[in-house]
């Protein structure tokens, strides 16, 4: 197999030959990526949109997962090029096999919220591994200049432009980035761009209705079971919520409605064995945080970080429900949450459009 050439600054002075697609993998070397000859390797994804136009490429692949996850599967590139080059899709987002307690921020917040907003069942809207066409690159260059892969509004831009979107199983299990960061920073990083996107695309997401599945490529995803099942201990999570309830109630009261605060009051009184966070309450809470973010009821950084104890309460409730359940039950549990988000969307829309008419 021909070694892929590296686009570097030293070589950029000479005109480069057009290629089919570019591959950006910041965690891999060209030798590790093993890309075919008709693809070209770009080390940094920051200038990828410009490179696509310069090289007249039909699209690009971004592989942002850790190197350990990417190195084991030689067919990764093919999995991502096939939907773009041969099936005519404009955005192919990775969908991974993972465990029931993996990617919890995505399960609790990002996936249900994005699905309710944009009407598409994209299981990992913030996936680090995806491919996209030059058409989407052009849309982003015009509508969101300066955006970069891994930081740009790819999904919302594709939905707004009416482009074709699919999911692809890249052929490896999802691994969390090794960078050690605290949970409140992870939540702020996950939700901040999502809420900001809601403001930019308010006219778009208020239109869509019931969500639709998207075409899937690659092997079917499955729930990965742990080698040795272990008991779930949610005591620390419940304690974190109790501490948050005691100290942050005044902060939450600036954002949440009285009804949601009452639900939290009831939740705080539950014993750990009976700890259940109703989906309706969680949905309303997330929507109210989105509204608070938009209305700048407080510093946005403070708002997002104050969600941490509430998120841990959801995790505790979810863990109690699914820790001994079968994979079907886990899937149904998450599907139920997503449907609740979709059912609660009219509440979000009405409060978004008429914020002054809210009367608790």
């Amino acid at each position, binding site marked *: 197999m021909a070694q892929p050439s590296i686009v570097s600054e030293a070589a950029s002075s000479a005109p480069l030959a057009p290629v089919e697609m570019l591959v950006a993998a910041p965690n891999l070397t060209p030798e590790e990526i093993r890309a075919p000859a008709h693809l070209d390797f770009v080390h940094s994804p920051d200038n990828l949109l410009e490179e696509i136009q310069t090289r007249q490429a039909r699209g690009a692949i971004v592989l942002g997962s850790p190197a350990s996850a990417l190195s084991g599967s030689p067919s990764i590139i093919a999995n991502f090029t096939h939907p773009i080059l041969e099936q005519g899709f404009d955005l192919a987002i990775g969908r991974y096999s993972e465990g029931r307690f993996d990617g919890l921020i995505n399960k609790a917040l990002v996936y249900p919220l994005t699905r309710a907003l944009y009407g598409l069942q994209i299981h990992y809207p913030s996936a680090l591994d995806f491919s996209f066409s030059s058409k989407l690159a052009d849309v982003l260059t015009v509508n969101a200049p300066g955006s970069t892969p891994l930081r740009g509004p790819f999904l919302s831009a594709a939905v707004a432009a009416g482009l074709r979107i699919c999911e692809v199983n890249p052929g490896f299990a999802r691994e969390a980035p090794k960078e050690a960061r605290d949970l409140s920073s*992870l939540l702020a990083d996950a939700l901040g761009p999502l809420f900001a996107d809601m403001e930019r695309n308010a006219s778009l997401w208020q239109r869509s209705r019931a969500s639709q599945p998207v075409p899937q490529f690659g092997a079917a995803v499955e729930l990965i079971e742990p080698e040795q099942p*272990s008991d779930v201990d949610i005591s620390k999570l419940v304690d974190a919520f109790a501490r948050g309830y005691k100290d942050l109630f005044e902060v939450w009261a600036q954002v949440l409605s009285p009804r949601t605060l009452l639900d939290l009051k009831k939740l705080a009184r539950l014993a750990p064995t009976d700890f259940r966070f109703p989906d309706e309450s969680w949905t309303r809470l997330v929507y109210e945080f989105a509204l608070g973010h938009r209305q700048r009821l407080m510093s946005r950084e403070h708002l997002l970080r104050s969600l941490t104890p509430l998120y841990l309460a959801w995790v505790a409730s979810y*863990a109690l429900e699914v820790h001994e359940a079968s994979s079907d039950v886990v899937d149904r549990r998450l599907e139920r949450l997503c449907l609740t988000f979709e059912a609660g969307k009219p509440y979000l829309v009405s409060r978004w459009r008429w914020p002054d008419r809210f009367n608790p």
Partner: protein
Amino acid sequence: MWDEIQHALNQSAMRVLTGAASILPGLLALVIVLLFSFGAAAFLCWLLRRSLQGIDFDSRMARWGLAGMSNVAPSYSPTQLVMRVVFWSIIGLGFLLGAAALDTPLTTQMVRQTFEFLPNLLAAIALLIAGNLLARFLSRGALIGGVNMNVPYARLLSVGIKWLVLVLAAAMALDHLGIGGKIVDLAFAILFGGIVLALALAVGLGSKDLVSRSLERQTSRVIDEHEEQFRHV
């Protein structure tokens, strides 16, 4: 002798009447200026009330954490407080203008000193407002950060930071106004140092277990399996 007494009385009466006659136009001007100021203040307050209600000033103040200023006068909303400040400021300005019309050395000096003091007063008010906003921002950040880090004294830390900043802002405002002098400096140093010492003791004593657990984890490299059970990303 009676002639001399009568002459002295006549002269003193003449001086008083002359003095009163010379000051009368100024007094009249003062009264007219005050009446005009009253009318202008009432009109401006009406205009101000409509504008502030139009922009929902009270709820914005509550959002920015400035509603606490109404604790000074609980029966007044922020809009009413602003209106009263504006009203009495215009009346005060009118009084100064009228006092200047009296054209006496005392009133002239008083007016000059008042206008010289005004920029310092405005700067001190701006310092207090900025200090209040900064105190609330920092205290809320400390509270949220402390709760998320499972720090048991998060609320104490938050309150301590808030009062540190408020005390600093108040001392800077008083220093700017030139009020109190060394007494304010000394009181600020004692208060500030006391708050810092109390916080240091609370944090130091309260974090003993946290620090020792953290060190144990680093040296023994034992990972609590429950901490790894939930992967958030």
